[in-house]
């Protein structure tokens, strides 16, 4: 019997759809240095997160990623100013220059700061920052744990390992904070390697204790009970499929046997899918409320993919090989505005389309926020004094 899933109004989007959307946009961002486009994408991304995130602890991580993005830009700028670099002619100001000995030839400290160099650095840093933001958005919209619940059963053990690994970082931070606070109670404010070693040891011991409790909990609740069925033929099938797909890929890239290559690749992919299915039958694990993949999911994931195709497709064209009319319509150079000579970046219709694709999930999905009574939250925040516990939360 098929149990109808939650009604549309209540259901949240499939986590993998969010990840697909965010990664698609991340790849698209990687294909441009146009600051106007980058800033618009970042703003749209944050808007979507604010409107569509749930009210769970991991949904608050976006702030940490914003800070990280700002940090990336700041660091790049700092080093650009410090190490200088003689690009361009528009001198903004000159920093005192430190003469370096002969063996450090080629490295310069301070010196002339040009608008061109600054623009180049900021454009490039902005690209990295917005990519980070994409990962942060995916994290906030769907926790990686939820996303990993949807992997095929054959990869179940691997996904569990990833989930446990993901929980280690926030735990280490939390233990570190607790032990650091406890050290203050002992009046131990010594610094240096010795005390660092002591803390590290205590933090590690704590993390191992926790992992052991988690493992005991999983064991006691039947993790990795197998059905006892020996699955025959899954491994050879998967090996053969992967071999076939690899050969196909090689033929496709290096030779002219395109049709044979395509056939081998299709056979390889299909065989791998079949092999995963068979291997999955080994585990008797079922899934509670599996997220169905419906048209909303396809559309949201599609937005990410299309945005990527637009940016990488058009940005990768060589304007000299296009006809003048086509070049004017596609305008591939606008994705990489010139910084030397400095030119004001332009927005075109394609870019606005990309921004629209980033914003598309807003009409396509519903808010994940739920009202939780304040009293319920109070209890937790107060239970253990955590002056900076937010950090641990943010990393989740």
């Amino acid at each position, binding site marked *: 019997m098929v*149990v109808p899933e939650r009604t549309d109004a209540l259901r949240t989007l499939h986590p993998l759809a969010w990840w697909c959307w965010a990664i698609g946009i991340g790849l698209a961002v990687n294909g441009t240095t146009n600051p106007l486009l980058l800033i618009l994408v970042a703003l749209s991304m944050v808007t979507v997160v604010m409107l569509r995130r749930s009210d*769970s*602890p991991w949904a608050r991580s976006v702030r940490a990623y914003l800070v990280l993005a700002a940090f990336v830009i700041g660091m790049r700028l700092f080093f650009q100013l410090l190490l200088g670099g003689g690009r361009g002619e528009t001198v903004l100001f000159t920093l005192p220059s430190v003469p370096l000995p002969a063996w450090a030839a080629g490295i310069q400290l301070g010196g002339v700061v040009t608008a061109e160099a600054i623009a180049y650095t900021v454009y490039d840093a902005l690209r990295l920052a917005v990519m980070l933001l994409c990962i942060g958005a995916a994290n906030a919209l769907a*926790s990686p*744990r*939820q996303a990993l*619940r949807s992997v095929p059963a054959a990869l179940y053990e691997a996904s569990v390992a990833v989930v446990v690994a993901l929980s280690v970082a926030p735990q280490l931070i939390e233990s570190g904070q*607790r*032990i650091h*606070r*406890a*050290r*203050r*109670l*002992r*009046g*131990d*404010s010594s610094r240096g390697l010795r005390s660092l070693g*002591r803390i590290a*040891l*205590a933090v590690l*011991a704590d993390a191992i204790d*926790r992992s052991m*409790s*988690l*493992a*005991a*909990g*999983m*064991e*006691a*609740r*039947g*993790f*990795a*009970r197998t*059905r006892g069925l020996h699955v025959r033929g899954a491994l050879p099938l998967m090996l053969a499929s992967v071999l076939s797909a690899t050969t196909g890929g090689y033929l496709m890239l290096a030779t002219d046997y395109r049709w044979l290559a395509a056939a081998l690749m299709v056979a390889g992919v299909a065989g791998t899918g079949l092999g995963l299915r068979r291997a999955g039958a080994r*585990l*008797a*694990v*079922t*899934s*509670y*409320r*599996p997220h169905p993949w419906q048209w909303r999911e396809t559309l949201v994931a599609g937005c990410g993919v299309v945005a990527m195709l637009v940016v990488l497709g058009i940005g990768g064209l060589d304007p000299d090989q296009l006809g003048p009319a086509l070049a004017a319509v596609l305008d591939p150079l606008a994705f990489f505005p010139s910084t030397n000579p400095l030119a004001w970046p332009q927005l075109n219709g394609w870019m606005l389309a990309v921004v629209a694709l980033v914003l598309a999930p807003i009409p396509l999905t519903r808010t994940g926020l*739920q009202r*939780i009574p304040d009293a*319920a*939250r*109070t*209890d*937790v*925040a*107060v*239970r*253990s*004094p*955590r*002056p900076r516990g*937010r950090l641990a939360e943010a990393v989740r």
Partner: protein
Amino acid sequence: MITFEHVSITYPDARRPVLDDVSFEIAEGDLCLVIGATGSGKSTLLGAINGLVPHFTGGTLSGRVVVDGRDTARFRPRELADVVGYVGQDPLRGFVTDVVEDEIAYGMEQLGIAPAAMRKRVEETLDLMGIADLRSRPLVELSGGQQQRVAIAAVLAARPEVLVLDEPTSALDPTAAQDVLSAITTLVHEVALTVVLAEHRLERVMHAADTIAWITPAGTVDLGLPADVLARSTITPPLAALARELGWDRVPLSVREARRRVLADDIRPPVVAEPAPVHGEPVLVASGIDVRYGDLVAVRSVDLELRAGEVTTLLGRNGCGKSSLLWALQGALTHAGEVRVDGRDPAGLPAAQARRLVTLVPQTAADLLYAPSVGEECELADRESAAAPGTTAGLLRRLGVDVEPSRDPRDLSEGQRLALVLAIQLSAEPPVLLLDEPTRGLDYSAKADLTAIVRELAAAGMAVLISTHDVEFAAGVGRRTLLMADGELIAEGTTLDLLASSVAYAPQLAKVFAPSPVLTAADLAGVSR
């Protein structure tokens, strides 16, 4: 349902077995309470039921443990998951998923139960434990009592025959403990589940027990009817102490039973003399203490005075801000308001000086320990406190703990570890001592030792503030009590006035003798019969 046949369990590097040639049987549908001193092997016994001991923890098990016809030697814990549901001491650490509903489904997913059946069972379990309104809440945001109920629900959903619970109420305030216990008794009465439960705070659970298994100091198990076992055992909950004090041959198991006996025998408790008020100088004066986490107010304008030579207890619900207040008083937590000790505010001082004014033993006391041996830990403390070498070691001996200096602090018993941390903190000779929830994991005799230590420190002129959930401990340790709710101090008075009249915080003997004000068995000395 559960049979132990000549079971001995020995951990590697241990000189003697934890359990020594133990044989007993727990019948189907019983609620069996496992009692024993700290470190006597309660958790080991519980772990042996679903095979976590020795499959997961190591060690050797001789003899046979059979649960529902399955020998744990041949079935690993995961293969017993459909028979035994196991909830460990700290439920939050055992949670596998993020959200209540997923956590409840997790066990069933592993058992391969069809999605349709799974959804029905999730709903039933949510209702059974009364947590339906929590279904989509993140686990980390739940309160302690809620987490415990979710953990029980999560193992129940797999429909086990046996439920094993390790100290389910120890970390909870009296009201939350009551909630969890009533959920457990419902299971025993309505679902005919066999429950095995270990607990230090017997007063909270013993009235519901069908049998008691006492792990004796020799490592054997004495299993029998509660009243019989309690009469023999060295574990003395308040009602057993009452029976001993009054020379009763049978230990009453509930307040109701004791009260009937008291009425039948016409026992009139002596009028308890109010202990003389302490006229010490106020050592710590706090005014307008506010603690905030973001937009959340944890402590709201608290004014407080601690006098030299006085022991004050701080009671309140889980999460009402007790810990935050203690940390703020020590100066280790950012707060508004002013604390004055000896004319100075510890918050503005470097850590080493602050702890010479106010010292705090936190809830997770073991966080303060990081040296590899007890001896090094003591030497380190001497240096940190600028005390003469040997001070901390001497304090530790005075606190009644005499262990080899080469022992690893992590291997000490709960009570010994607390004493070590206390010795380290006292080596700074502060005038004010703050203890946060010190009785977790302590048995009755360790608690009595702690009470004696605290009184001795107070007699020597120290001001002591203890936050606790343990009303029996609070009743015995201090004269003055503060009640806290929702970040505010709501009542202040003598322990006798506040506790004897309280609904939630009355100790058992106060309930037995109400309206006469009696708090502990010691108050009954020289009772008129």
